[in-house]
C-alpha cells in the first residue's frame, strides 16, 4: 500500500539532494540545475497532498511553479552567458566582485 507519506518522503529527498548540490557545487549552471531539482521536489509534495485532499489547487500551484522555473532559467542562462563573456569563468568562488 503506497501512502501519501511515501510520496512526501520522495519529494523531500529530491529537495534535499537539490540543497546538497547547491551547497556543494561551484559551477553556476549546475547550481541552476539544483534549483530545478528543488522545484521538482516541492512539486511532487504538492501533487501528493493534492491527491490526498481531493482539491486541484496544488496542481495549479505546480503549474505556476513551472512557469516561474522557465522564466528563471531563461533570464539566468542569459546572465550566465554575459558573465562568462566578461569574466571568462563560471566558478562562483571566483565571482567575488561584490564581496568586501
Amino acid at each position: 500500500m503506497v501512502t501519501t507519506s511515501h510520496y512526501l518522503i520522495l519529494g523531500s529527498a529530491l529537495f534535499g539532494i537539490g540543497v546538497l548540490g547547491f551547497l556543494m557545487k561551484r559551477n553556476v549552471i549546475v547550481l541552476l540545475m539544483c534549483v530545478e531539482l528543488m522545484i521538482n521536489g516541492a512539486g511532487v509534495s504538492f501533487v501528493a497532498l493534492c491527491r490526498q485532499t481531493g482539491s486541484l489547487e496544488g496542481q495549479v500551484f505546480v503549474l505556476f511553479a513551472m512557469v516561474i522555473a522557465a522564466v528563471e532559467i531563461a533570464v539566468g542562462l542569459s546572465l550566465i552567458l554575459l558573465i562568462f563573456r566578461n569574466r571568462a569563468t563560471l566558478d562562483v568562488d571566483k565571482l567575488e566582485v561584490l564581496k568586501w
Partner: protein
Amino acid sequence: MELIQFYIVAAITISSAVSVIMQGRVMYSILSLIVTLLSVAWIYAILNASFLAVVQVILYAGAIVVLFVFAVMMLRYEEIEPQRMRTGLIGCLGLLVALFFIFELILSSATGPFVEEATLSADFGSIKSVGAILYTQYLVPLELASILLLVAVVGAALFSKRG
C-alpha cells in the same frame, strides 16, 4: 503492484538526481537531469495528475533542458575548466547542513498528521478539470504569468544583445 511501481520510479528519481550533482562534466549532469524530470513526470502520472505529467515532459524535459544544452554549447565550457566539488571546511559544513535538512524533512513528512484520503472523481487532474479551475478562479494569476514570461523573454534577448 503499486508498491513495486513506486519503488522503481523512486529509485530512478533518486539515483538520477544524485547523478546530477555527482557528475564532473556539465553535459552529463544535464543528461541525468532529463532522466530525473521524466521520472517526476511519471510520478505525476501515477498521482492522477495527467495534465501536469504532459506539461512536465513538454516544458521541463523539452524546453528548459534544451536551454541548458544551448548554454553549454555556446560556452564550450568543458575545455576551459573541469568541475570540482567543494572541499575543506566549507564543503564539510555544506554537507552537514544539507544532510541535517534532508533528515528533518523526511522525519516531518513521515509522521505528519494527515486528513483522511478523499475519494477522487474520475476526471481528477484531467486537462478539462485543471483548465476549468485555471480559467475561472486563477484567471488573474494566469494572465500575470503570461506577462512575466513575456518580460523574461525580452530581458533575456536584451542581455544577450548587450554583452
